[in-house]
């Protein structure tokens, strides 16, 4: 197994914008040679939310093949952080080296010479490389370059803003590498300029303090990157109770390691449903169904809440036809994520994704933080649905391009328009005739 195989989909994505004369090996090497230092302080790491920033960031960076250095005080891990294992923060993070992507190391050497530094909380020293501070609250995450913002201790209670902040930072590391590669078209440089300050807010909702949050019975259609990102995020939300099923007949391959957030390099050859059903928090109970949707079991009856992370568009239509209540659909296309929710009477996923884009039948360009955004957005929708505060219809669809989150249209909330030619023949589309 080589780094080239593991990072294949990210290399493919970068090819949208790098000079075609570059070889895959050269692109891969550039990502693998980036050294990223993660820094934090005892106060920020004393909360589960603060720990979640660091675990998520290290996971997203490692899955891009980068070399991670740690400058962190060690502390006990407060809540499970799958797929990381270990009772102390540094032990768990260091042990993940070479386990997420085989040549992505995690080290705590004092002589680690960083190209990029990310700070959660305070950094008493003077950074000798481009440095971003990660800040946030329960539902909002931000990154800002040193000089633009001042360090703030991480004090949020809930971990969604933490994961937003980590995803924003991971993108800055990705763009750092892209800027070092010769471009295909010089004007494309605009997509990879650093964000001096950027943030994203999923908007606050009331979460009962210290109470269990019952998500009910939930079916996950696909155990791939987006579903794993959703489960990664769900597992970090305290007090979650959820049972359900996960459907997929796919086997873990090397090229999945760059984005499947619950998967380890040692999982190659394992059914994805086994990974998705085993590696999460204590309150999540998923039954693995090794079956592609629609199939013998999955075609019978779906749960009241269905999370769809499958690439195949006709499968989304079948889910829409079979599901009776609430469906969240997440997808990615190059640097873009699409996240939507469909309820009875509202324009369905067929209206939003009306045509089967069969593509080239195989290699889909992807990168860790883009898939992660898609899963995180679905998790937020599921939480809001369970807590009785779903987004309003004008936010039925989120189209988000997490490259330049400092720009006003990086994320757009939009309604879904019904289509007369809806392939799922939903109620909203039939009412147009």
């Amino acid at each position, binding site marked *: 197994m080589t780094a080239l195989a593991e990072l294949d989909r990210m290399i493919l994505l970068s090819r949208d914008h790098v000079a075609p004369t570059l070889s895959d090996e050269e692109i891969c090497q550039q990502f693998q040679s980036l050294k990223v230092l993660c820094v934090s302080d005892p106060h920020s790491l004393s909360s589960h939310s603060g720990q979640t920033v660091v675990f998520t960031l290290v996971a997203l960076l490692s899955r891009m093949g980068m070399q991670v250095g740690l400058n962190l005080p060690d502390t006990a891990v407060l809540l499970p952080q799958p797929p990381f294992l270990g009772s102390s923060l540094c032990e768990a993070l260091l042990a993940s080296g070479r386990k997420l992507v085989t040549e992505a190391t995690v080290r705590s050497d004092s002589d680690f010479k960083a190209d990029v530094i990310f700070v959660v909380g305070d950094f008493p020293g003077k950074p000798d490389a481009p440095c971003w501070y990660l800040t946030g609250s329960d539902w909002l995450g931000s990154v800002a370059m040193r000089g633009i913002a001042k360090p703030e201790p991480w004090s949020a209670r809930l971990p969604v803003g933490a994961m937003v902040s980590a995803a924003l930072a991971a993108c800055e590391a990705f763009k750092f590498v892209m800027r070092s590669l010769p471009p295909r078209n010089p004007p494309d440089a605009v997509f990879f300029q650093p964000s001096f300050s950027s943030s994203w807010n999923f908007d606050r909702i009331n979460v009962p303090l210290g109470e269990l949050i019952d998500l009910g019975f939930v079916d996950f259609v696909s155990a791939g990157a987006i579903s794993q990102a959703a489960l990664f995020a769900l597992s970090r939300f305290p007090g979650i109770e959820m049972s359900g099923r996960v459907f997929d007949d796919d086997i873990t391959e090397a090229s999945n390691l760059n984005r499947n957030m619950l998967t380890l390099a040692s999982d190659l050859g394992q059914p994805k449903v086994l990974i998705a059903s085993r590696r999460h928090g204590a309150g999540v109970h998923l039954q693995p169904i090794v079956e592609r949707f629609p199939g013998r079991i999955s075609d019978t009856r779906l749960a009241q809440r269905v999370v769809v992370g499958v690439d195949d568009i006709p499968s989304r239509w079948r889910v829409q036809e079979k599901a009776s209540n609430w469906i969240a659909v997440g997808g990615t296309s190059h640097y873009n994520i699409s996240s939507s929710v469909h309820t009875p009477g509202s324009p369905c996923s067929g209206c939003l994704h009306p045509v089967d884009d069969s593509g080239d039948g195989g290699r889909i360009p992807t990168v860790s933080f883009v898939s992660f955004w898609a899963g995180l957005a679905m998790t937020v929708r599921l939480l809001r649905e369970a807590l009785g505060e779903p987004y309003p219809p004008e936010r039925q669809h989120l189209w988000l*391009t997490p*490259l*330049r989150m400092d720009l006003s249209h990086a*994320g*757009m909330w939009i309604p879904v328009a019904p289509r007369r*030619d809806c392939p799922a023949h939903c109620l909203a589309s039939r009412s147009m005739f």
Partner: protein
Amino acid sequence: MTVMVEKKFAVDVVYNGVTKPIEVQPEEQVTALLHKAISSFGITQNAHLLSLYRQDGSLVPEAESVERAGLTPNEVLLLRPNAVKGGGGLLQLARSIVHKTFHILRECGRGECECIVYWIGPAHESLIDGLEHPVHLRSALGYQVDDGWLTTFWKALGASKRSIKAQIHTHPAEAFHSATDDEWPIVSQAGFISIVIPDFALGQPSLENAWVGRLHTNGEWQKLASMREALILA
């Protein structure tokens, strides 16, 4: 003195999160705006998959002018992937067209010969509103459309701004796409739909047992799981 009225205005097109103003004329086609946007962002890969969307989630109709599409100055449009174009969308048709198709295929084929029908509609819409039964030679093993009829038909389609949306033909028994069917569709454009009806169309007038395929951009025919992936029966 003649006063020139400036009608030109700009819309804001968003691609990959970056916004660029693109100037348009009211009488300009939306396709021209789309091409300008694609060019402005320097998009060279899979540009044919991109469409413009309004902030209400609706697709900006490419067959319209900017004015008829209702675009307004400084309106924000999202440039994002739509789907495989060139006929890749779902075709709408009335059930009566399916019944009429079966009637023609049975009458002409008489249970012993293959037969062919073309479904047609407005060139820039995914609507089937008519059918054509071409002049053709027929046998139990195949059919051959008359060249002269075809030339006249193409001219008529061009003049009326209509196009062939799908070809439907019969087989003696099993429905499948033969090598000849693969090689000689009436239209060789990606997204074109071909339907093969089994048993000389003597069964129920339904497409449930038909072979339905779409011509892919790589020139190969993709068998669809069901006719619902290509058609909407209203």
